[in-house]
């Protein structure tokens, strides 16, 4: 709510014209690229450490044409999506229930508040012991790393549902169940989508950690291999792909928010 107000205030000041906005967006992406071009062209840094954009694109192209890139990317996306979905399916409903019912909150808040501070990456040895070295530990790691944030962030969002809205629903003849399903959930939907968007970023971070363990394919795995052979241009290429995919997913979430919650944007 507050962020909405602030966002509107700022946007009304400077960013009213979309030309201005596009210009700023372009600058934020182009400036670092130009800098990179300039630095690598001037050869102030050893190219073995800082590959040129051309080298990176070459590497990208060769990985793409050999099919490695597709295999890596699809393996990674699959892991992220499964872990992320698991965390969403468990975390969002629990968060809503925690926000809506004081008893459920009292039951789950201390536990999730505590577990949230255990770094998910530190669970990996245990997960490998329990679940082996296949896909399962990677997916579960991503889920563990985000599920408690989902719960707590959604729970917080529920606190912002106006009391009047809930009470009006009860006096219109709504049951408690309808209040939760049709009013609280619907009202918090924009925050839920935003929560998922934010935790999607965390999922990508954990993906790389997960793939460092034991994976045959995956973008994170490829980066690790590239390091072993000192192929910095490949590391750059994979980082670029990770960034672009994350960015695209982020945009997709923003689009989803716009489409489903026109009233809130």
């Amino acid at each position: 709510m507050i962020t909405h107000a602030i966002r509107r205030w700022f946007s009304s000041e400077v960013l009213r014209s979309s030309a201005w906005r596009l210009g700023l967006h372009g600058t934020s992406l182009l400036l670092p690229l130009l800098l990179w071009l300039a630095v690598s062209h001037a050869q102030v840094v050893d190219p073995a450490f800082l590959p040129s954009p051309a080298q990176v694109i070459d590497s990208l192209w060769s990985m793409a044409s050999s099919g490695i890139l597709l295999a890596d990317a699809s393996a990674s996306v699959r892991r992220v999506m499964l872990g992320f979905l698991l965390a969403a399916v468990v975390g969002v409903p629990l968060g809503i229930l925690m926000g809506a019912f004081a008893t459920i909150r009292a039951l789950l808040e201390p536990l999730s508040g505590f577990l949230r501070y255990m770094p998910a990456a530190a669970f990996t040895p245990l997960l490998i012991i329990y679940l082996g070295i296949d896909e399962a530990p990677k997916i579960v790691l991503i889920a563990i790393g985000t599920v408690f944030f989902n719960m707590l962030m959604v729970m917080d969002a529920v606190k912002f549902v106006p009391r009047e809205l809930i009470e009006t629903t009860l006096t219109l003849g709504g049951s408690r169940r309808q209040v939760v399903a049709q009013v609280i959930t619907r009202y918090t939907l924009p925050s839920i989508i935003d929560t998922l968007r934010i935790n999607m970023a965390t999922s990508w971070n954990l993906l790389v950690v997960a793939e460092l363990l034991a994976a045959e394919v995956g973008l994170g795995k490829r980066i690790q291999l590239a390091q072993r052979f000192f192929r910095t241009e490949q590391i750059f290429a994979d980082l670029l792909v990770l960034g672009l995919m994350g960015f695209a997913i982020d945009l997709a979430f923003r689009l989803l928010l716009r489409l489903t919650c026109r009233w809130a944007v």
Partner: protein
Amino acid sequence: MEFNVQSLSKTFGEGRHARLVLQNINLRVRSGEFTAIVGRSGSGKSTLLRCLAGLERPSRGVIRMDGQPVTGPGPDRGLVFQNYSLYPWLNLAQNVAFGMELQGRFSRRDIRERTAYFLDVVGLGDRRKLLPRECSGGMQQRVAIARALAADPKVLLLDEPFGALDLHIRATMQEFLYRLWERTCLTAILITHDLEEALLLAQQVHVLAPNPGRISHTLAPNFDRQDLDNLRFSPSFLQQRRGLAMAMESVESCSDVPQGAS
């Protein structure tokens, strides 16, 4: 329909922090009556209305509706708040239809017809597709009233419904509510801090004196309400308003003694 409140008291908190907010309230509202409860801020008006709605449990006493004790909120008592009460993701027509959909006892066709009817009643038939945020405060309140009525309550409870509106729109809305009451066989209980509003609209006016909230006066103003705008400034109206204001003042100056634990 008959609403009956018998020796209702309400205390918030416990032990040393206990605070008596309503003391021994007795009220009776009959079918078709327009009742106003007036009192200044903090006198417990909202608490009383929330008890009537079933959103707050009385500490003592009973509220009965047609002989049945009120135990919780229900669709027989519609509620309109001061603000924030439209569903922001639904357009005006969907807002009006929402209560009927929740109840599940109306057919598709009934819902459609009643929605159109009540939107027309509040004069918003041609704005049905707007979202609440695209509407003025006055329009939103009219939709809230239409939504409450469409859910088919036996009594409409209004908690300072026009409190957030500017004076001009407020006068329009008062006129609107009064004509609506005249036209339909509505039973209404209106909470307000505005003496003028209470005297202007209601057949029964109960004055809630603060600390603890109790009914200090009850009167049945009997004006010719053909022309509300003129009535506001007619001598007999102003006189009665002044008399009531003074009576309230004298009660309040007596009640400034410290209150003991209940």
